């Protein structure tokens, strides 16, 4: 598999237009009116694209077959070359490779690292038991399970749980984060590496509706976003030791978005932090703010970066051109692409969003133009995945849909029913789809 096959979203950007005049762009402390920001309008060299691809590859030890964090290896929720079943039937066990029972609860998503599927749960009367479970990806056999005690606040809405954030891995270690702001670091055999109780350090950090921001690990740094009405902050922890590399205050407001890794075309990594009033980009290791973009951002779906651009859930979706690496320029915004709780997906030249009414929209990343819409139905907390030209999504009732994607339309080609609630986002590794429902972890794959 070539690098470009592994990272099919990387393409040479073309000319873009500027819009979104009410937004403001801040670079190096200077506020620029977005309307004055000029579009980049130039092609990128293949060398720069390759540099970005290499940076993406080098950012983590996780392999291309892994799905080591929320929304996958590059955060776009795309595993372009994976060959997933075009149909499956849970009740008839058609293309269901295995099903494993889970202890506890959790809307968190599974991740897949080195043929292991990692799932977090929380249990106990106050969701105070923090569980990390590991399964053999091939067989579904339980390999190990670890449990810890929450040190922070564990309250949440009844539909959520302490295990709401999706864990992350760099291929060497697992970083399991919880609403209680506890971070458990284990090696792939389940041995404790370190444990950090962020609410132990900052007791007012918490949100009794439940926190849900998933960490990312990049440049040997685990980045967490702990935004709430108490001690509100983001932090970068040394992946090897758990020590704080940096910590920066954030506005005191409730927010559930997750940090996103953005690889610039210059081959550098940045971490995007999306808050209700601003999107900021930071150097992963130092926390230094690289730029910011002020807008009324959503508080659940998270920004995604691809091909030198960032797509942020604000005014529907606002696309930012970052081909220069540090100065965001508004390309377009589109209310027609307004996402619900599920985060947007980027596949090549197309952006996909699912709104609160269960309508799937496909847009053109160049101009935000809506190409088609398809009513899928239901509320989707789970961010879908795209593999081999098909989109897989599961609503909170556990109803799965498979949609064939083209520029002309989205065509519903398959349906399935997990028979219980699904809140966690989907994961793809190899040619298998991994789904976490309330009680079970599922592997969907052709035998």
């Amino acid at each position: 598999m070539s690098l470009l096959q592994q990272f099919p979203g990387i393409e040479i950007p073309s000319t873009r237009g500027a819009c979104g005049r009410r937004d403001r762009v801040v670079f190096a402390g200077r506020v620029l009116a977005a309307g004055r920001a000029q579009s980049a309008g130039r092609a990128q060299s293949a060398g720069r694209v390759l540099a970005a691809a290499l940076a993406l590859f080098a950012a983590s030890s996780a392999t291309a077959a892994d799905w080591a964090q929320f929304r996958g290896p590059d955060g776009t929720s795309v595993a372009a070359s994976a060959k997933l079943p075009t149909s499956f039937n849970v009740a008839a066990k058609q293309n269901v490779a295995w099903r494993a029972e889970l202890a506890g609860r959790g809307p968190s998503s599974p991740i897949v690292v080195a043929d292991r599927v990692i799932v977090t749960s929380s249990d106990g009367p106050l969701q105070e038991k923090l569980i990390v479970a590991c399964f053999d990806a091939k067989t579904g056999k339980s390999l190990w399970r670890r449990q810890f005690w929450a040190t922070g606040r564990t309250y949440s809405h009844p539909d959520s749980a302490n295990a709401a954030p999706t864990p992350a891995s760099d291929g060497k270690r697992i970083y399991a984060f919880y609403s209680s702001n506890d971070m458990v670091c284990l090696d792939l055999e389940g041995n404790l590496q370190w444990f950090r109780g962020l609410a132990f350090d900052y007791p007012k950090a918490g949100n009794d509706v439940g926190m849900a921001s998933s960490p990312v690990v990049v440049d040997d740094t685990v980045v967490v976003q702990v935004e709430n009405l108490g001690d509100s902050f983001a932090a970068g922890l040394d992946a090897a030791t758990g020590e704080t590399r940096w910590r920066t205050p954030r506005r005191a407001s409730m927010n559930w978005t997750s940090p996103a890794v953005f690889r610039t075309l210059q081959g550098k990594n940045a971490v995007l932090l999306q808050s209700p009033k601003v999107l900021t980009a930071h150097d992963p290791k130092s926390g230094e703010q690289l730029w910011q973009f002020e807008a009324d951002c959503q508080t659940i779906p998270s920004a995604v970066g691809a091909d030198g651009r960032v797509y942020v859930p604000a005014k529907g979706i606002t696309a930012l051109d970052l081909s220069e690496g540090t100065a965001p320029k508004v390309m377009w915004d589109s209310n027609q692409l307004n996402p619900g709780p599920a985060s947007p997906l980027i596949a090549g030249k197309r952006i996909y969003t699912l709104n609160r009414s269960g309508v799937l929209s496909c847009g053109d990343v160049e101009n935000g133009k809506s190409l088609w819409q398809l009513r899928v139905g239901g509320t989707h907390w789970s961010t879908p995945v795209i593999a081999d030209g098909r989109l897989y999504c599961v609503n909170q009732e556990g109803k799965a849909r498979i949609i064939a994607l083209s520029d002309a339309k989205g065509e519903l080609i398959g349906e399935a029913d997990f028979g219980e609630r699904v809140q966690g986002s989907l994961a793809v590794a190899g040619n298998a789809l991994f789904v976490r429902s309330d009680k079970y972890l599922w592997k969907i794959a052709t035998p």
Partner: protein
Amino acid sequence: MRAVLSKKRSGKRSPVLAAASGPAASGIARTWTAVAWAAVAWTAGVGLSLGAIGPAQAADAQIESGLATVRKVGPKGAGHKEALEAVKTLGKAPAAELPTILAAMDGADLLVANWLRGVVETVAQRELDAGGKLPIAALEQFLSQTSHSPRARRLAYELIAKIDDQAETRLIPGLINDPSLELRRDAVALAMRRGEAAGTATAEAKAAAAKAFREAFTHARDLDQIKAAAAKLKGLGEPVDLPEHFGFIMKWKVVGPFENAGGAGFAVAYPPEREVSLAAEYDGKKEKVKWNDVSTTDDYGVLDLNKLVGPHKGAIAYAYAEFTSPREVAAELRLGSVNANKIWLNGDLVATNAVYHSGSAVDQYIGAGKLKAGKNVILLKIAQNEQTESWAQDWKFQFRICDAIGTPIR
């Protein structure tokens, strides 16, 4: 530290090991080759010696040094670098050392307890994966000693239950009044199952069920179990007094509203914060306000300020109660409120939570204090903001005083 751990250590010990509590132990090379040798020596009951200090001594020193290092882990990553190495070393300890590692949780905070838990699970899994055995007798002894950390004791039970499917019926029933909330919960769950099993087919069966559910209700401290046991008792026509069980304060004096536009009033010390004078009249948000007697009959002690004070926005109310304690005792002041709040005990501020409409639950906020013998004065500040969403209109609270595991102080 070493003395404490050595005293609680279990398993057969060699004379050499027993003598290895001197300062020289700290100078031993910290390799787990020595520990492996020590394990052999323990098993054989032979006191090996390598020069002045034997491998068993080295193992002992290594474990105690490792545990001492982990116990130095603190907030904000303090002690992590040293502890990283220590947990790797401790993870290779013989399973016979599990009670020693568990004992290191005694008096430790939750951060340290979590690090040690990770070590315990690593050691136990390694032993079981290798077809070895866990030191069941020593773990049961550890479980039986309530002086140990409640969490460590529950973890000891979990280890026992991994390999003994009779552990629950053998060990749990006697723990229904245990200081460990988790073990107590296990025992309450057993009592509930006993009540279910009794059925209601005959008068004798009903009586047996009621007895089991009553036992469960009396000892339950977790909200879900209390609710479940109460429902069963009510279903059998048995009396249930939930406010009594929890110790909710049901009668208050309330005054308000005071101004809280823009949330600014939360930081303002209105007259009741300076001195409670129950006969006084104050300048309120729009007019003069005075203290009123209020009460609730809600099972969970909820007082609705929208009804008692009025559906004000950007407003503050104070609630005052007197609580008689039979003795001077450490206590937890537990408040549930979807509104920003402060708690004072005898004039001392014990909790501040500037959080609005972010969920509410029984015992949501806890302030720690010490009750005087006799009369104690409780003052609450409950602040409403100006959010207009339908889900952001509640202005209410519930409050109780109890010990660390939720038993009301009477």
